[in-house]
């Protein structure tokens, strides 16, 4: 599903050039649950942004769904993104001005789904995430765990093939964290590919494979459990 070959990302300012990713190569297959780990500043988030088509690499090749996308335009990336990728962020990134329902509905709006179908699908997902009773609330009226469940609901509502999660439990207590990890695990069991950046060793145990990054390079890849 994903194939990275010698991916490089260099950030330049007037005086400094920082290599965030240095010739990183790996492959991720459909249905995998992969954790990316490493210390702060090792390039995890940069890698996730490139994988999520939010950013282009400075060098190397990136194939997504067997298509080279490393040099795609913003418009092409936006289209690929909305059809195939769901995002879960550490700080949830819900839009405060929209209700739970409307936040979850947003990706479907951008996909151009008719409103009747949207309503049905959103309600389905909210039920699945056990947050339907809060659908008319605004994000700031919810607990952190509930907000993250909304974020997960939003990530999966368009039935993406891939979910990218950036420290999904970073802002949650352990009980709520576990809840969210179980949700991701369930999605993975049902066939969704998941790539998760995390600091948490415990969260990493949910993944089948861990890619460890250090100074922009992969230092090792472990299989944590058998692929079912």
């Amino acid at each position, binding site marked *: 599903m994903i194939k990275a070959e010698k991916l490089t990302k260099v950030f330049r300012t007037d005086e400094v050039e920082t290599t965030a990713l240095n010739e990183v190569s790996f492959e991720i297959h459909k249905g995998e649950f992969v954790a990316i780990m490493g210390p702060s500043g090792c390039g995890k988030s940069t890698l996730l*942004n490139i994988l*999520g088509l*939010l*950013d282009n690499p400075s060098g190397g090749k990136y194939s997504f769904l067997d298509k080279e996308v490393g040099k795609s335009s*913003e*418009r092409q990336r*936006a*289209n690929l*993104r*909305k*059809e195939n990728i769901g*995002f879960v*962020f550490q700080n949830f*990134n*819900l*839009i405060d*001005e*929209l209700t739970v329902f*409307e936040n979850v*509905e*947003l*990706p479907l*709006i*951008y*996909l*151009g789904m008719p409103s009747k179908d949207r309503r049905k699908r959103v309600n389905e997902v909210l039920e699945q995430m056990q947050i339907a009773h809060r659908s008319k609330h605004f994000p700031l009226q919810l607990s952190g765990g509930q907000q993250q469940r909304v974020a997960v609901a*939003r990530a999966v509502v368009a039935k993406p093939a891939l979910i990218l999660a950036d420290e999904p439990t970073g802002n949650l207590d352990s009980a709520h964290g576990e809840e969210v990890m179980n949700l991701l695990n369930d999605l993975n069991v049902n066939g969704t590919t998941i790539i998760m950046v995390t600091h948490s060793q415990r969260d990493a145990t949910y993944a089948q494979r861990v890619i460890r990054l250090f100074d922009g390079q992969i230092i090792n890849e472990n299989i944590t459990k058998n692929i079912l």
Partner: protein
Amino acid sequence: MYANYFKIAFRNLIRQLSYTLINVVGLSTGIAAFLLILLYIQFHLSFDKHIPEIENLYRVTQIQQAEGVGEQHVAFNPGPLSEEAVKVIPEIKDAVRMMAWGAVPVRVEEDYHTQDNVIWTDQSVFRIFGIKLVAGDTTKALTELKSVVISLKTAKKYFGSAENALNKQLVFNYENGYTIRAVMEDQPENAHLQMDMLVSYESALTKYPFLKDWNSNSMGVYVVLSPTAKPDETAEKVHNLLTENKALSSLTSGPEIYLQAVSDIHLHAGHIKFQNNYAQGDFNLIIAFVIIALIIIIIACINFINLAIARSVKRAKEVGVRKTLGASRLNLVYQFLGESVIITLLALIGALFLVELSLPEFNRLLDIQLKVQFFNNPLFNVGLLIIWIVISLLSGVYPAFFISRFQAIEALKGTRESGSKFGGWLSKALVVFQFSVAIALIFIVIVTSRQIQFVMHKDLGYNYDKVIGVALHGGDVAADAALLKQEFKSLSGVGQVAAASNINGVAGSQFTITVDDTADQKLMVRAGYIDADFFSLMDIPIIEGRNFNEAYASEDEAIVLNQAAVKALGWTNPIGKKFKSFDDSDSLQKPTVIGVISDYHYYSIHSKIEPAAYMLNPDGYHIVCVKYQPDDAKSVVEGLENSWNKLFPGKPFDWISAEERLERQYRNDRNSIRLFTLFTVLAILISALGLYGLTALRVEQRSREISIRKVLGGSVFQMMHLIIREFLILIGIAGVLALPVGYIFAKQMLEQFAYAVNISIFDGLISLLAALLIAVITVSVHARRAAVSNPVNALKND
């Protein structure tokens, strides 16, 4: 998708209520001012458009070279011209002559009234001006001697209805036997000539036989040309016609002629010195107001743009999330434009409310009757729609593109600051523009106000303080004046009393005098018919020779000149100099100069003092001037009125104070400056409102920095200085840009006056200081709040 945009737009507007209010209030005020100005301009552009053949209707205008005066434009012509022109110039299809009189005493049954808007004219007036008759004979209403046609409102005023007015008799200007032959519809307010009473030209001819003479020059002449005619060629033919008939032989050279389109009269006749024209507009003023209207609306849009950019930091996360979820840039542009469309709509509604609210006061201020008409006036349907679209785009497009340009990752990470310092150079440039405009406007207002003050308080060369004029209204004016003078002098509180052709000493007309020597030197002068008391009543010094003396038998031929006349004639010893007899008689007694008075401004100081010749001529009196002593003008006027009623029972008592008359000459200037000041204040308020909102956001953005500085020991004053300095620099730049522009405009404005104040450096300094003060006060509100706030709060949010 669009429902979603509107939903979030509304929620944003409500959530950010203070921001929304600043935007809506600023835009509403801006649009309201814009609409008011457009209404005002529309009114001035609409003049005479109701006339059916307006595109072919012209007024015959002369360019005279007047000795001692110079070039002057005159829209009067000899009485016989119009009839003759229709006969001999084929492309002139129709013509009408009109002689307008300001106010004429009219007796209806037993009561006297002062009738305004009286015009002597021909029957063709109805055809040419498309005036419909409400009652009476349409074919010959103005063909007979002493026939009168009155407007519907006049008919209602005097007789209750049009039908009742028909065939009623009037005493017109103390002359019996005038009959109302017809009642016409009222003229619209936007007609350059208001007509409330038309009197047949035949009646004028009997009363003023000189009108038959090609040498008299007192009829406004309007001609209808055939559509294919070339006005310039026709004008040449009119010129030839005048030359053939030896018209205006007193001028050294015959006048040049041009045909002025009647549609141009209202706004383009300021240069014409003599004309029948009531509500004269000023095209330059219209241009000035167009500029102000645009400036105000642009300032309001700038507020919107600046606030949107400054607030974009807050919207960055939303942009990031939407982009991550697949929103294209265009989706986001639509969304943010949608918000501007909604805000503009709210502002538009607010503006209409403000217009309705302020229109009565606006009308009162300008003495006009403007109305909001949603169906009949395109300004309020199509116009509003255009304003809505244009302002939405003008204020929404840049912010929409600016905000939607944010990269998703940067926006989500929060590293996106809206171009470090409030939106970068564009925001700064816009603030500089706003304040440049404000400073330039303040500068112009200061200079203009000083000029008006100067005009009102300039030593005009005579003392009009505590002078009242009582109108004589025709009849035997010499006898009436003598009677009144005697009666008024006996009243308590009354000082000197004098009779004159006008309260300023001169009649409205000019005539040419010829020096009695071999060179036949000519001079065009204003004629003043006064008695021996006039100069001393008005404190006008006689600088050479002597005043009139009514006891001398030969005083009929005595002439007093003003300095301007002496100068124009190039005389050093004027006393005893003679002119050729005015009535072409070869009498031995020739008009002789007995004295010279110092120049005084008998008209407004818009114009230069022209040569004037004064004569002791009781038949030319129109007014009796009274100098009163006590401060209580009211009791004096009451006394005068009682005396008047005793002497002339039933005749209307019309009086005017000299000061009021003078003030009236500057009424247009004063109205313009009032309007200009009003819109300047609005422009400044809108700018200040924008600055207020901008500082709020700026302070919010810098709250972390301010907190850290405070933790490190920064004082409240230092923190305020930090924020205020940023804006003060911009206003300094604005001052440098604005003052030269203001200077150019102010200079142009002053050129309309023959005598003007000098623009001083203080005008510039005061405008700059005023702008700085406004800015400092505005910015300080938020700067102080941030400076005294607890730094922990801001850092905690970090």
